[in-house]
């Protein structure tokens, strides 16, 4: 296997694939513990109701049932609510409204799928059958589901003590300066936009197995998490009040996350608590309908946005007013998504000198809304790029030309935006030029005419996006309300035989860290790739970790490993100097060989590792034995991946069906460790972005609050025949502030692509008078837009 090139920059085949391809992965639902019993969660069938009583008598008598617990049982035991990790401060200087989030409902249920009781039985079917015997006395209440409706006065209150369902009103930017810019504008573009609500839908449903060892007074929780240490911290410190060192959380192989497995969920805490109560390990695996109802959802913004331009097409200012849905309770990072991760991105790739954004966050009778691939940045990119495309159309300027007039020039970095970020490096013209070349923009007009002859409408859409990744400098995050640090931890352990185990606080659930991180470590230490194993996902094996989200694993987790590697090499150099009887300054290190400069006296990394563990000839008076170094890395800035996406569509006016005939993405990710994996990440992100633009939409009934799109029959997941073949490229400028020069690539596709798709559809139909279409651009919506435009032209 090791004949392949595994150096940094090589498309090394993945280490993890061997087990995944042969059915030997170990996901949470694959884990069975001795004596294990099963949990079934009884969930609310109503969007909003008062609970007047719960009678569990009959359920407790059902076959196989060990216990039934409700919110009262947890409260009596002092179990706390699920915490939110980010405090947003309101425009009035007040903290956001943070109503309690009990793991099992107390007093009221607030969304369809809210947790009412847990039934624990010898088998899953026994628990599920017994749930039907739990008698809940519900008093139905009116429900609110859209953020705009929820904020209107007089609506039903999701939390009785949160007036107007308003979690916070938050602002960023200089309002007066922005208003001045609009007063001077030669042209103002105005748009009303909906960023459609999405359900993340990792194919592995959430699952957990919890156990308690009485002998050791110790808990173990296996869970489908992107960040097991964060779950341990939140659960032990805030919910269950357990000593953190008495809790082990393991996130083994995890079948996709996309943000939805960052958060601390009720099931994790309830199972851990109940495992001690019943004295047996307890397992729970979500059915897909439970995933639809109770995984945190994404997006769900309603926005009015305006862009002011001068007579030359230079952007003068941007004004954005957004209503964001929080759902029924604040999930772990919910409050930061439509604020810190959103408004700060509104400068995009442009020199817009002044920007003002106001965000009103609403509680509704829907599942909690939190980070989903991109988290705030896709919403910002959709606003900025739809505005730019509309402005180009309205002013008659070519969309690429309008962008180039407003790009931050590559000489201008570092660049301070008016919305708090300091971009370190980039070359936006280079990615746009390359994307236009690959997309054959020059040949588009001929293709449009050819399609026209077949009765089809072709359109070309652009998106030149930026994202802030590598979350995050802890001091900046803290100043903005984060209740945690956002560094990462890593450890590089050389064994006496020269083999290497790497421990990382990052978590891989598809990203291929076991390969990418091994490439870095093997290259830096000059040891064989096959001699390096990467361990992640276990709080007992890894010192600490903040986990994987926000495209942070390589930029932050990889940087922590680089720091640990530096320590290993520094110590090795001292050992080599002693063993080779030279001064430390004379030791040169290159690719696993420590050499006395100008001589043939040398030692390999493996020889030094052996000596460190068998220290017979060793500087014991100066150095400890062993070769095992750890490091924490806290980034000094965000990273700023950026790129250009160009979408070409063909629309059938008779059916409204949109076919993507060409999709090009050229990205700047900084240095690339494994281009094969990077390309795969881009593909996956594009699929989710195109899914949002054309197919996916979570719908709650506006009156009843019932989840209408609660199965794969109703919620349109992108399938192989829905998507085009992608053309991807890179034009990289290395990040200036981390040791690998990397930026992150996991979210780019989902961030950049939606406005390119929608713009392509509008471009295709602009000759018919269509100026706007909402996501998802389903055939019905496109057909309706065509016919509305026809009707208004006829009138």
């Amino acid at each position, binding site marked *: 296997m090791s004949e392949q090139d595994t150096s940094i920059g090589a498309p090394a085949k993945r280490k993890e694939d061997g087990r995944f391809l042969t059915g030997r992965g170990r996901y949470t639902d694959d884990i069975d513990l001795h004596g294990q019993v099963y949990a079934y969660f009884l969930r609310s069938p109503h969007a909003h109701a008062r609970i007047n009583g719960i009678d569990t008598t009959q359920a407790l008598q059902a076959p196989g049932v060990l216990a039934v617990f409700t919110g009262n049982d947890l409260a009596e035991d002092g179990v706390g609510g699920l915490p939110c990790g980010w405090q947003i401060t309101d425009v009035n200087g007040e903290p956001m409204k943070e109503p309690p989030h009990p793991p099992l409902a107390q007093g009221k249920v607030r969304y369809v799928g809210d947790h009412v009781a847990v039934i624990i039985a010898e088998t899953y*079917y026994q628990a599920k059958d017994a749930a039907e015997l739990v008698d809940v006395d519900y008093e139905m209440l009116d429900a609110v589901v859209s953020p705009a409706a929820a904020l209107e006065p007089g609506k039903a209150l999701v939390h009785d003590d949160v007036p107007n369902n308003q979690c916070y009103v938050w602002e960023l930017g200089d309002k007066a300066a922005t208003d001045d810019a609009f007063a001077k504008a030669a042209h103002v573009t105005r748009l009303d936009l909906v960023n459609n609500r999405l359900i993340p839908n990792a194919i592995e449903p959430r699952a957990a197995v919890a156990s308690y060892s009485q002998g050791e007074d110790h808990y173990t929780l296996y869970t489908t998490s992107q960040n097991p240490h964060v779950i341990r911290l939140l659960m032990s410190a805030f919910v269950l009040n357990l000593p953190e060192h008495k809790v082990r959380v393991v996130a083994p192989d995890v079948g996709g996350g996309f943000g939805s497995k960052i958060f601390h969920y009720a099931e994790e805490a309830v199972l851990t608590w109940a495992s001690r109560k019943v004295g047996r390990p307890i397992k729970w695996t979500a059915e897909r309908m439970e995933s639809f109802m109770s995984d945190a959802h994404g997006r769900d913004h309603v926005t009015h946005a305006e862009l002011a331009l001068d007579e030359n097409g230079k952007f003068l200012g941007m004004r954005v007013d957004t209503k964001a849905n929080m759902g029924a309770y604040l999930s772990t990072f919910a409050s930061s998504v439509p604020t810190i991760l959103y408004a700060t991105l509104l400068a995009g790739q442009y020199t817009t000198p002044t920007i003002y954004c106001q965000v009103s966050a609403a509680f509704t009778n829907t599942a909690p809304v939190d980070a989903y691939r991109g988290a705030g940045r896709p919403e910002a990119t959709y606003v900025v790029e739809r505005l730019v495309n509309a402005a180009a159309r309205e002013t008659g300027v070519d969309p690429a030309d309008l962008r180039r007039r407003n790009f931050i020039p590559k000489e201008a970095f570092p660049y301070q935006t008016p919305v708090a970020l300091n971009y370190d490096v980039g070359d936006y013209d280079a990615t746009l030029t390359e994307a236009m070349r690959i997309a054959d923009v020059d040949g588009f007009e001929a293709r449009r005419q050819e399609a026209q002859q077949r009765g089809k409408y072709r359109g070309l859409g652009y998106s030149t996006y930026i994202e802030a990744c590598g979350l995050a400098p802890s001091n900046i995050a803290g100043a903005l309300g984060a209740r945690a640090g956002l560094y990462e931890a890593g450890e590089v352990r050389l064994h006496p035989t020269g083999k290497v185990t790497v421990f990382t606080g990052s978590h891989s659930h598809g990203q291929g860290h076991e390969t990418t991180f091994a490439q870095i470590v093997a290259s830096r230490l000059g040891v064989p790739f096959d001699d390096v194993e990467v361990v992640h996902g276990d709080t007992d094996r890894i010192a600490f970790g903040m986990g994987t989200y926000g495209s942070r694993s390589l930029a932050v987790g990889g940087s922590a490993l680089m720091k640990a590697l530096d320590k290993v090499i520094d110590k090795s150099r001292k050992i080599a100097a002693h063993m080779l009887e030279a001064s430390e300054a004379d030791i040169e290190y290159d690719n696993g060989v420590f050499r006395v400069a100008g001589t043939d006296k040398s030692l390999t990394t493996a020889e030094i590792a052996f000596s460190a563990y068998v220290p017979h000839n060793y500087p014991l008076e100066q150095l400890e034995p062993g070769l095992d170094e750890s490091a924490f890395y806290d980034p000094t800035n965000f990273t700023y991946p950026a790129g250009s996406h160009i979408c070409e569509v063909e629309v059938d006016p008779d059916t409204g069906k949109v076919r993507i005939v060409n999709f090009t993405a050229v990205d700047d990710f900084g240095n690339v460790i494994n281009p094969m994996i990077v390309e795969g990440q881009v593909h*996956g992100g594009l699929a989710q972005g195109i899914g949002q633009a054309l197919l996916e939409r979570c719908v709650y009934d506006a009156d009843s609050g019932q989840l209408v799109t609660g199965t794969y029959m109703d919620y349109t997941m992108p399938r*192989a025949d829905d998507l085009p073949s992608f053309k991807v490229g890179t034009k990289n400028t290395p990040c200036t502030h981390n040791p690998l020069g990397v930026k992150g690539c996991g979210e780019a596709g989902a961030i950049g692509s939606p406005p390119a798709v929608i713009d392509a559809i509008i471009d295709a139909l602009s000759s018919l008078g269509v100026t706007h279409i909402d996501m998802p651009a389903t055939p019905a919506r496109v057909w309706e837009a065509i016919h509305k435009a026809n009707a208004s032209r006829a009138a």
Partner: protein
Amino acid sequence: MNVSMTVNGETVSGDVDPRTLLVEFLRDHLELTGTHVGCDTGQCGACTVHVDGRAVKSCSMLAAQAGGADVTTIEGLANGGGELHPMQAAFREHHGLQCGFCTPGMVMAAVDLVKNFPNASDETIREQLEGNICRCTGYENIVRAVKTGAANMGGR
């Protein structure tokens, strides 16, 4: 009730609740956890196995219905000896998997696809994989993998 069948070449049997699904029998009774459950409604295809040589979603079939059948799961696809089946190898070669959860079902569906369409075009591959959802890869590399896998299977 008692069911028996051949799984990956071995005769197996077990006492099961009549409502036991084939996937539950494979996972819970035989501990063949390579076959995954993604949706329990026959939509996602993660549970795809071969029953008497045809791809079947094992969440949509009772264990009792598979009585006497010849079942192959992802664990039994390769011929032993550490060699991957050509389709498994092609998925590795083309990075046709990320989190790995849909992968067993995807590979089993792909092997069945090649039997029915030995020289499938990209378009046919995409159509034929319509019953298997992958949330990670965007399908691009899966299509590449299936083409290579098909070529290396020699139409088998």
